[in-house]
């Protein structure tokens, strides 16, 4: 892995008796990082610790090699944050507020106004930028939240559930915008409980469940699978029996079989079994593992 941009070691966080994070060890490279987990998995807590907004009860956190606990201001000067909840004064225009947040991020006042205008145009709010937030829809607010998160040119943007509350079109637009952030040279940590959104936008996945780290690896590695998926035309019973007698692990759902072998080429074994049983074949190919499969399997395993 190239130099990690985020490193945590033995990270623990508890709120009273609730353990929000438990011994989280992370090394995350630059790029588009998906932070996945169910509600309450610890995603927002992890993001706030990365920003130095929360002090962990144990362990260390570094962002770009700087301790988020000891030097939070140095970290925040390189990071943008899009919170999950509302963060706008209803009586202020988007242009004024985003310009102000650029100044809060360390940009000169003269530059802030220009950049606010550019960034609001980028997120699709060019026409609406002189309207008050009180008149904004949920989708417009989400776009404006993204604008304030990137207006000061951060190197890393932390997005906490950016697509929540959006209709399908709005979600699509938001995911496209997040994809583009990577093209602008920004790293993105994108927190979501919608696994499909993460699959569409991210190249690295950090998976949390009840405060524990389940996975921390490239999306491609998670999706890679040795399993072969076969769909039969007939009752799969004889084929399952023959496959298992050859040492294969077989999961059955109706006439669909997911087959894994410890060693050897599964395609050859399946060919032999089909020839032996005389069953009809509808389709056969490598099984594509989704994040949902992995998440459910990991969740099952940790129970």
């Amino acid at each position, binding site marked *: 892995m190239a130099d990690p941009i985020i490193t945590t070691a033995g990270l623990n966080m508890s709120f009273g008796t609730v353990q929000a994070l438990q011994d989280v060890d992370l090394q995350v490279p630059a790029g588009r990082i998906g932070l996945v987990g169910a509600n309450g998995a610890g995603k927002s807590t992890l993001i*706030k610790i990365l*920003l*130095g*907004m*929360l*002090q962990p009860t144990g362990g260390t956190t570094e962002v770009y090699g700087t301790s988020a606990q000891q030097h939070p*201001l*140095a970290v*925040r*000067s390189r*990071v*943008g*944050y899009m*919170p999950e*909840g*509302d*963060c*706008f*004064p*209803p*009586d*202020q*225009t988007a242009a*004024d507020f985003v310009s*102000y*947040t650029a*100044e*809060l*991020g*360390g*940009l*000169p*006042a003269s*530059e802030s106004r220009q*950049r606010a205008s*550019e*960034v609001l*145009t*980028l997120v699709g709010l060019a026409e609406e930028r002189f309207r*008050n937030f009180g008149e904004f829809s949920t989708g417009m607010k989400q776009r404006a939240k993204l604008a*304030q998160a*990137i207006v*000061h*040119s951060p190197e890393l943007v932390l997005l906490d559930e950016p697509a929540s509350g959006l209709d399908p079109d709005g979600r699509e637009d938001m995911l496209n915008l997040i994809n*583009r952030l990577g093209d*602008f*040279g920004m790293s993105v940590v994108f927190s979501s409980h919608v696994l499909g959104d993460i699959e569409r936008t991210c190249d690295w996945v950090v998976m949390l469940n009840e405060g524990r780290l389940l996975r921390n690896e490239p999306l491609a590695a998670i999706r890679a699978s040795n399993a072969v998926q076969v769909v039969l035309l007939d009752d799969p019973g004889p084929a399952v029996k023959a496959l298992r007698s050859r040492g294969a692990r077989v999961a059955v759902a109706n006439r669909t079989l997911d087959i894994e072998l410890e060693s050897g080429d599964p395609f050859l074994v399946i060919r032999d079994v089909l020839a032996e049983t005389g069953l009809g074949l509808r389709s056969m190919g490598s099984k594509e593992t989704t994040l949902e499969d992995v998440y459910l399997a990991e969740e099952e395993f940790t129970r």
Partner: protein
Amino acid sequence: MSSEGAIFDLDYRRYEGTRTGRTKIRWAIVRDGVRKVLGFRRKARRKIIPWLLIAAALLPAIVNVGVQVLSQGFGADELVSELLISHSDYFGITFVIMSLFVAFAVPELVIPDREHGVLTVYASRPLTLADYLVSRVAALLLLVATFTFIPQIILYLGGAVLSGDIVDYVRDNIELLWQVPLGAVAVFATQAGVAFIISAMARKKGVATGIYIAWFLIAGGVAFGLAEAVSRWFALIDLQGSAIMLVSRIFDDPSIAADSVLGENNISAWASLLVVIAIAAFASGLMYRRYRKLMG
């Protein structure tokens, strides 16, 4: 005109210039606070209350100077030899207006940020909680100082013109250059502490303003009653009286505070100062504690 439209995707332009430090960031928060209170870049109705109060604070000074300048024109030299309203009197005259202004300004400075989640944005930027709170208090101080200085400057210039010898007037009144700013700080300190305490607890601006005004209206009566019935030290509950007491001490003019609850109970300006400092310390601690939970 071309029949073909074109969409120009400007993309994202990274900012590569130098970044400002925390001093400029704090100053941005102060400017934002001043704009909020005065209603700049807000709808017209948001400007009504602050500007009416500012006009009301200016009016006595303008009328005073104006009447005297006109009187001079009619040859009433004895009437116009000096100002009808002194600089120290002016603090007393505008005190109620100043209190209403503080009652309106402090909730505006702190409550919307808290109730609309804006604190999260501050918490994600390179500034500390103390930067935020100090900048908000500084915005109020700047407003109160301006509120105080402008009519005092009008009086000063009026007095200088009426005296007939500007150089002599400035020399004779040189102490005003420290008395007026110190008086403004005294008024700010006595008013701001309670206003920030109320605004730290209230969820709505109107409620905070209402509570402050109610306290302003009853504190004098409560202080008077308790001072009569229990102990003279209860006169210190009347913080407005403390402000007047401090101004009277700064201008070395006991007559201003003679009729106040504190004056009648022989409470010294030093006792008032201690109470004001204690309330300011309590308000600071309360704000810091409350906001640390919200901003981390």
